[in-house]
């Protein structure tokens, strides 16, 4: 099986221990309003258009076989309905205003790319993190990839939102050294409203996973107005406190730095009124969580 990849980032230091390469797979089972990588939500190829970089040269309009682009008085118009994502326009866009998101890659190709940094993994106790999107929507690919990496003695982490069938988690269990497991909210109604899906599977899978003694790092995105109030934090803390084997928690602050990508992808951004939580707020939240006997990872 080939994987649907959206990005491969070398030298990542916030997705698990040490220096890592993070592979972002395309397609997600959630659609969180605050998502910072909106290009990873759809499983299909997409083309982003960064208008701030576009000089209106018209190279895309000349190249496109489907007349997606028209140049009107030096200004570019795009009709995405006509687009079949062949990517010819992005190859011709010398200003990087048009960017392709999504390509296929085999396990072997991916392994040879991530192994380039083997020395760095070894010296930092780092490795490879499979992220997304929701990587476990491509569970077979993930399992094959991790199996190949384990054969090379590479530390492997899976960054999951948990909204997948248990069988998908089961498929990677033999190979994953660490799960980075996102938890957004325990309240199902709010969860549905902000992520588009129920949290039932997420909580069930986490409970089940926590029984298995595999290392898990819980990641809570702190979203003002959604889960940053005391009651929300308490329900999360209570839920986690009751689970066996869950000890470490990392709070990820919301930042509104993804807006440009939403614009480029022509996806409405629903978080315009929300701003980054203050350091004070962050400290209060982590202190509150810590009171549930959780170890908070602080990289500040």
């Amino acid at each position, binding site marked *: 099986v080939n994987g649907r990849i959206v990005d491969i980032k070398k*030298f*990542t*230091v916030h997705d698990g221990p040490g*220096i890592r390469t993070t592979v972002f797979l395309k397609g997600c089972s959630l659609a969180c309003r605050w998502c910072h990588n909106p290009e990873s939500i759809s499983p299909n190829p997409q083309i982003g258009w960064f208008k701030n970089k576009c000089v209106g040269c018209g190279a895309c309009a000349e190249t496109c076989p489907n007349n997606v682009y028209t140049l009107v008085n030096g200004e570019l118009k795009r009709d995405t309905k006509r687009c079949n994502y062949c990517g010819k326009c992005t190859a011709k866009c010398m200003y990087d205003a048009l960017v392709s998101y999504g390509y296929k890659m085999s396990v072997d190709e991916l392994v040879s790319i991530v192994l380039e940094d083997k020395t760095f993994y070894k*010296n930092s106790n780092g490795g490879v993190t499979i992220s997304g999107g929701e990587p476990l929507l491509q569970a077979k690919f993930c399992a094959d990839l991790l199996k190949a990496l384990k054969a090379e003695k590479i530390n492997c982490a899976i960054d999951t939102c948990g909204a997948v069938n248990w069988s998908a988690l089961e498929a990677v269990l033999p190979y994953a050294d660490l799960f980075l497991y996102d938890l957004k909210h325990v309240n199902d109604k709010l969860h549905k409203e902000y992520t588009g899906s129920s949290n039932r599977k997420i909580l069930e899978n986490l409970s089940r996973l926590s029984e298995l003694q595999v290392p898990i790092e819980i990641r809570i995105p702190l979203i003002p107005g959604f889960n940053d109030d005391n009651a929300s934090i308490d329900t999360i803390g209570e839920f986690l406190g009751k689970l066996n084997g869950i000890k470490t928690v990392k709070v990820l602050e919301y930042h509104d*730095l993804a*807006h*440009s990508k939403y614009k480029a992808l022509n996806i409405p951004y629903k978080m315009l009124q929300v701003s980054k939580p203050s350091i004070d707020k962050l400290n209060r939240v982590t202190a509150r969580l810590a009171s549930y006997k959780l170890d908070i990872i602080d990289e500040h």
Partner: protein
Amino acid sequence: MVKRFEQIRELLENQYIDVKFDPSSGLSPEKIASEFEEHRKEYPEETHIMTKAWLFHLLCTKGRIAVDAEDYFVDKLEHNNIMLKLRGETHLRLYNMEFQGEPTEVPGLYNTRLDVSHICPNWVELFKHGLVGLRDRAAQKEGVFYQAIVKVYDGAIELVKRWNAHCPNPSLAVLAKGPPQTFREAMQLACIYHELLEMDGEPIRSMGGFDQIYYDFYRNDIDSGRLSRDEAKELIKFFWMKFRAKTQGKEFGKNFLFGPIANELSFLSFEVYREMNVGDPKLSLRLSKDTSPEFLETVIKCIQDGMTSVVILNDEKWIDTLIRYGKTPEDAQNYVPIGCYEPAVMGEELNCPNAVNFNLAKGIELVMRDIRDNASFEEIYQAYFQLVEPEIDNAIALAKRFEKRWNEINPAPFLSGLMTSCLEKGCDISEAGAKYNTTGFICIGIGSVADSLAAIEQLVYKDKICSLAELKKALLADWQGYEMLRLTARNRVPKWGNNKNQVDHFAVEVADRVAKYINKNKNYRGGYFTAALYSINYSNGFGSFTGALPDGRKAGEPVSRNTGAMTAMDRNGVTALINSLTKIDLTQFPSATILDVMFHPTAVSGNKGIQTITAIIRSLFEQGGMAVHFNIFDANVLRDAQKHPEKYSNLQVRVCGWNVRFTDLELKEQELFIASAEEAS
């Protein structure tokens, strides 16, 4: 009573500005100058080394002095740069005589010079013998050379006595009679030697391995109760501040080396450096497998906090390299960086690292100008070497002619008197008196060369996007009218620094061939030329004389810096940059290579950041890197990135779980990030 450093910091920072020399303590500079003129008229046939020694002695015995009662260390003698001016005049006269209008450079391609300005005296010998011991050692032998040495050391000893008479000081009393006994006396002697050697026209770059050569003095003082830890810190602060005060931190600077084995003084020194928070002096670390992790962590914490002048050297690799290029294993252990990073054996080697600066990238421009339109790629590639190699020969021939005149320009008895091999051979450093005599040949723009060759190969021969004739025309027109072709070259061809073999193999091949070609040449002093791979700021200077290049670079823009990628072209992060660089056998560049690494503060902050930087250094060195220094992006740089996004397309902004390129952000978003960068710093 000496005040505490922090109380009089400003005074110390400005101690060399408008020094109040005591008018009654000696002759005015005008009087000194006229006495010197009379002397030259009286002895027109005198050897230059004796003339210089006479002037040195005159200044020491008759020049005005100043002693600041608030300073631990005494070093002020009014010499008005008269000896430096003498060097300049002599240099110009002999330069004209030697070259008679013949150019010593090809603008944009290379320049050559006499480099006398990278000295590391043998501090260990200095502390062992003291000024008196060095004088007596030379006095045992006969001949003009030894007389000159005795003359300058007599002058120096007399000067110490004069300072002490002017304002009594226990260290000076000891140094007027013999070698230093204490930590303070050793530093006092280093101050005096530094001041007088620079007066003599030989600028010092390296102050030696601080935690090694001062350790015994420090240990004895502490153990005997003569000195407290706090007093030792105060002494170091007063001592180090002199080197920042001299240049006001604007240029050059002094290098103090540390490691590889750390001791109490190593830790104490970095504590001092942190408290002083200055960019000068510059500290370097010899990092070996025996360097303690605690000390490496101490050094990295300084780097994290923005003290980015610290250079880290791959100790085992440097020692191996020096042995490979002719040093004995014992001498190789005693190497020091004698400039920014150039290694030389302390007190035994006179390396002139800056004698030739050669812009490898200019060769591409010249080849593309003259190559015939139907040439194959292989023909272009060979034409490059056929053009560059004779130019290397020319540059080397010019550098040798400079060296030939050195003994007439600036014989240096004060330095030679400290060099054991000069005393044994009976000749001055300017006449190859040193045990090792090397001449550096700096190769600039390796990244631009690799990128250009890859672009020619891909655009013309693989993808056939344009003909060779078209590409040549585009370059001659500085890409005017060929913007799409330029952007294709810039954005659609792999670049050096991204771990792409398609381009990296050119850098490896060119570096190998050029280094071998350079290293086989003997210099005028019986030693060898040694290749280097770095650029200082010449990538800008030479760049402004270099026309358009096939990699999409426009005429006049800088060529690639040091061993790194073309500006903003390392788009795959630091690990890929290191993987590219270490494909080159860097030991072929014994006169140094350096890698610049840039980080955003969020990538290397906190405890994890220490581990990250450590792993980067260890991995670089494990793969064959020789030296590295770090820049951590601050808010000011981000401001510049806002204004000039084209220069910063490699700047990754990554905050806990997502990433975006800084230049992709909208203005408001950039503002936010700048604010958080300010927070992080």
